[in-house]
């Protein structure tokens, strides 16, 4: 397994989490459409691609990324195109013939229909939402079900919101919902949405949560200690240095919030230290340097601050003060009471809970119900915040 820090991890670079994978399949088997929800860098795209690469026999899987899509029709066009070019369907002669027939009938002006050569002319602009429905109505999937995985869906909503306004953005949420609820066709497909910004968050901000509340949510949690350890062992197999169990425990304890990305990033920094100093065995001292470099050298964390800028005025001030207090305070936490007091300070008594929930959804803070406190999810993030933002 190789260290992967910028690309989705696939094939043997994907760290398998059987419990999570089974959970996702169970949700798929129950016919729901799903949001894979997790903060950035937890491994959502990698999980989707694993499902695509290892689909169960009764499913065809289509993966579409719609990050560069700025309007609704283009969104459905990308989906239709992906279905017509779907790799797993291509392997089935009968189905591909059915698709070719369907496409020929539906797109009279299509340039060519065949593997890899589905090109649409923009001279005639179809309504691809309608075309999607037509395809689904007529296609013979031989009893299979089509899983349509849409990556960066929330980014598409955000794009449309910026380009065409909130009404159009909400409309895309509505039309997706209509498709999911269209009983003529919804037995043939399911959607799985994910992306690097929170769909729940953006829907909430547009007051449109009702259009996604039929979706089943799969929360991708950080790795357990045992999983974290086994990921490090897997990575070490492809590296030239060794780390003993104690050092690995030390590393994981320093990271604490065990998302694969942090572990991969720390291992990447450790590899740099190995390269520089030719250490064949890594001890705690190098781990400390690696963690320090993660915080110092990388702009990997500045995003945590940057993306809060979508909040304005008192919302922003409230969030910043909450996070600054947790970062600076000796106890490294903030109590429910202190938070309520801040909400009063910023006149946010009605809405502050929503803001806190977004911070939790996006992986900034954890809530400890028992002690009635909030803390940063990761000590590394807290140290970074304390150094770069709060001070």
């Amino acid at each position, binding site marked *: 397994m190789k260290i992967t820090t*910028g690309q989705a991890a696939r094939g043997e670079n994907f760290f398998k989490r059987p419990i999570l994978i089974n959970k996702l399949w169970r949700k798929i088997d129950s016919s729901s459409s799903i949001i894979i929800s997790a903060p950035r860098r937890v491994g959502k795209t990698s999980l989707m691609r694993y499902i695509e690469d290892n689909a169960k026999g009764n499913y065809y899987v289509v993966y579409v*990324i719609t*990050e560069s899509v700025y309007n609704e029709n283009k969104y459905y066009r990308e989906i239709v195109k992906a279905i017509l070019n779907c790799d797993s369907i291509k392997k089935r002669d009968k189905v591909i013939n059915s698709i070719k027939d369907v496409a020929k009938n539906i797109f009279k002006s299509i340039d060519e229909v065949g593997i890899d050569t589905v090109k649409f002319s*923009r001279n005639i602009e179809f309504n691809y939402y309608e075309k999607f429905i037509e395809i689904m109505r007529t296609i013979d999937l031989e009893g299979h079900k089509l899983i349509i995985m849409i990556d960066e869906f929330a980014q598409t909503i955000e794009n449309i919101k910026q380009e065409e306004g909130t009404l159009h953005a909400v409309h895309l949420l509505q039309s997706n919902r209509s498709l999911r609820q269209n009983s003529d066709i919804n037995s043939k497909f399911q959607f799985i949405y994910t992306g690097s910004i929170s769909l729940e968050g953006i829907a909430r901000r547009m007051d449109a949560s009702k259009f996604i509340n039929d979706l089943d949510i799969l929360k991708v949690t950080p790795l357990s200690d045992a999983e974290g350890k086994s990921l490090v062992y897997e990575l070490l197999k492809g590296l030239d240095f060794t780390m003993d169990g104690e050092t690995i425990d030390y590393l994981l304890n320093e990271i604490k919030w065990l998302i694969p990305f942090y572990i991969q990033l720390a291992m990447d920094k450790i590899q740099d230290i190995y390269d520089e100093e030719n250490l064949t065995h890594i001890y705690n001292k190098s781990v400390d340097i690696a963690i320090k470099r993660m915080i110092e050298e990388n702009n990997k964390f500045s995003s945590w601050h940057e993306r809060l800028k979508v909040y304005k005025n008192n919302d922003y001030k409230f969030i910043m003060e909450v996070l600054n207090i947790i970062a600076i305070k000796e106890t490294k936490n903030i109590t429910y009471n202190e938070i309520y007091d801040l909400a009063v300070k910023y006149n946010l008594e009605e809405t502050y809970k929503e803001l806190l929930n977004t911070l939790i959804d996006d992986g900034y803070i954890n809530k400890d119900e028992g002690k009635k406190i909030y803390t940063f999810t990761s000590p590394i993030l807290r140290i970074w915040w304390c150094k770069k933002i*709060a001070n």
Partner: protein
Amino acid sequence: MQTSLSLYNPDNLTEQELVDRFVIRKKEFEKIFKDIKSSEMKYPEQHYIIEAQRGYGKTTLLKRIYFEIKRDKQLKTRLIPIILPEEQYNIRKLFKLWEVVAQHLEGESDEFIGLYDEMNKYSHKDDYEDICFEILEKKLKEKNKKLILLIDNIEDILKKFKIYEQQKLREILLTSAEIRVIGASSEVLGFTVDYNKPFYDFFKQIKLKGLNEEETREFLEKLGEISENNKINKILTSNNGKIEALRRLTNGVPRIIILIFDIFMEDGYRSTFKELETLIDRVTPLYKCKMDNLSPVQQEIVDIIALSWEAITTKEISKKIRMQSKEVSAQLNLLEKNQIINKIPVNEKNYMYQIKEPFFNIWYLMRFGGEKEKAKVQGIVSFLETWCNRKQLEEKEIKYMDKLKAKELYEYSLDEYEQVNLFFKFASNTDEYNKSINEYFIFLMAKKQYNYLLKLFNESEFNLKDKFKPIYYSLMYFMKNQNEKFEIEYRKVGEELVGTVEEIIEEVKNVEQRYNVNN
């Protein structure tokens, strides 16, 4: 004048010369190449950006990778590398990138002839850029080849793309297993560190740092070998401190090390400071151009920051330039964005600013500073030379200073301010005792006599701060928990001195342990 720069300019070298002369950046090369070699490219792979300022060896590294893929029997059957050199002025749109790639592929292998024409057939279509990539991808699959796309100055291309083109390219690089990008960039790419931009966090960054002592030595030896002049070997043995002092001042930038090599090859003995003055002349065209590219107000601001040498706050700058803080801040942001200055936080709201490239600052001080500024540089040069030579220097201390080396001194009362003052008066016009003074200061810090040492530094008549700047910053390191202002002072340490200050701190800790001075 023919300089060694031309002997080392990657654009002037044949494949064999480039490979033979490749002595620096070996680790980075091996890291990337090992990854390329072990990647099946069955799935989309990790893309890279090699990041460093100009003159650090990015182009050479890209070319080395390019040649190695072509030389590797096993790799060249499945991979096809192409390299897009600097200055791709014609690539403003994503489709153009694919067209240029097609043209390069045609030049690289007959298998791809006709690819550009095939793309061009669809140039009237609205989604031409999509079609171009589809054709390229299809052709690569057909020929069973994976493309390694090496792009020099990738930032020049990416920043011209519209945001949707950047998003589209990211989608392609995330989903296509047929192409792998290894870019080189002399800027911190705004769009790789800005969360709102598509390429945020996307590339694996390989940062090229300045050469360390060992790498510099190896590099200079290689330059001697290429120019068939073994004089450098003698200099490396006899004048190690001088070379190391210059390396630290110039941050080990390879392009400047080549200039240093040329100066060394010229006849006659010169002091390190003289060598530095010659070097300053040689880099003038490069740095002058950097200044000329700034607006008049920016030039004025850079003048203030550079002459201060230490980090300086917006308020201090505004006062000197007689402009409102707001206006100065706006200019400072631009200068930071253009990589001219660094921003160092003082507290939540305020920042200090410093020239980003330390040697540019030294150049400025020497060219445009008065006697006082030049003396500051001279102070640092002689400090570094002494420090880097400390092991080889002969013991020439006067008797009083000799005593300092003995542990007995540490049982002495340090209540000898008068005596020490007298010594500094005597020593302030000469560098002869620098080594002993360094040791004395280190011992003082080991004995935790921080405030005593600070008092000495504050005696303005000795100018100790100018002459022993790295010691001063080390003192600030040890005092930073006493008061916020010491912490802020410590943050002012320039990049050219960071390594030296770390060594001094380490030395203080060693002395403390060795003599157990605090027990």
